[in-house]
């Protein structure tokens, strides 16, 4: 009886309980990852901008030597990863806000997610190729 009254205070619907619907405790995952990558990108972006600005107009030898140094290569891979993770999360929200046709929305979301991964992998491959001696 006590158990019954406890159950009757649940805010979940009977059907939802039977179907195991409800919070999967991941509702803030998108929000949290966007903030986490934002925080990481603050120092990474400042470092990148200052670095490339101070080597403006560099030739291939200088650029390769810079990218190949372990600390730079590692930081570049971190920058690329955080950038594309952050970008695709942000673009996803924009698409969900402005595109109301479900089919088109899904198609563009899939395209953006795939493009982000392809670009990130291509950029990381370029860094590693230079770092491991082209």
């Amino acid at each position, binding site marked *: 009886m006590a158990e019954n009254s406890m159950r009757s205070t649940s805010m979940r619907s009977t059907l939802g309980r039977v179907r195991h619907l409800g919070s999967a405790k991941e509702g803030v995952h998108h929000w949290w990852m966007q*903030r986490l990558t*934002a*925080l990481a*990108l*603050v120092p990474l*972006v*400042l470092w990148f*901008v*200052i670095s490339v*600005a*101070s*080597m*403006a*107009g*560099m*030739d*291939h*030898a200088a*650029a*390769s030597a810079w*990218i190949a140094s372990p600390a730079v290569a590692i930081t*570049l891979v971190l920058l*690329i990863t955080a*950038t*594309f993770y952050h*970008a*695709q999360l*942000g*673009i996803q929200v*924009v698409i969900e806000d402005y595109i109301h046709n479900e089919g088109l929305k899904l198609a563009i979301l899939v395209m953006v997610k795939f493009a982000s991964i392809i*670009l990130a992998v*291509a*950029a990381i*491959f*370029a*860094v590693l*190729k*230079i770092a491991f001696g*082209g």
Partner: protein
Amino acid sequence: MSAHNRPLSPHLQVYKPQLTSILSISHRATGIALAVGTLLLVWWLLAAAAGPEAFATAQGFLGSWFGLLILFGFSYALMYHLCNGIRHLFWDAGYGFELETAYNSGWMTVGASVVLTIIAWIIAAAS
């Protein structure tokens, strides 16, 4: 009531533009621009990996007046999104919601993004 007859909030253009709303939509606009701009970063890295000729082509384009114009816009968008992003992180932590503070941090974002962009280009010009 059918979904089509529901009352709608007034369209955005009836509101007077304010610093806060302009900065808000600019954050989104620069975010989209920066996402497109990542293509430039990927191209630059792939060119460096491909060899001296491809890299010279990329550097030649970026050093042309059109390339510099893109880089200038890119750098400002990046610094703006970075500064306003920090403003957002303070809000996320629960600080800065008072109207006066929101305006002050807004002007600080405008100022800091301009100053940081100028510093970056001074560094580039001096190198």
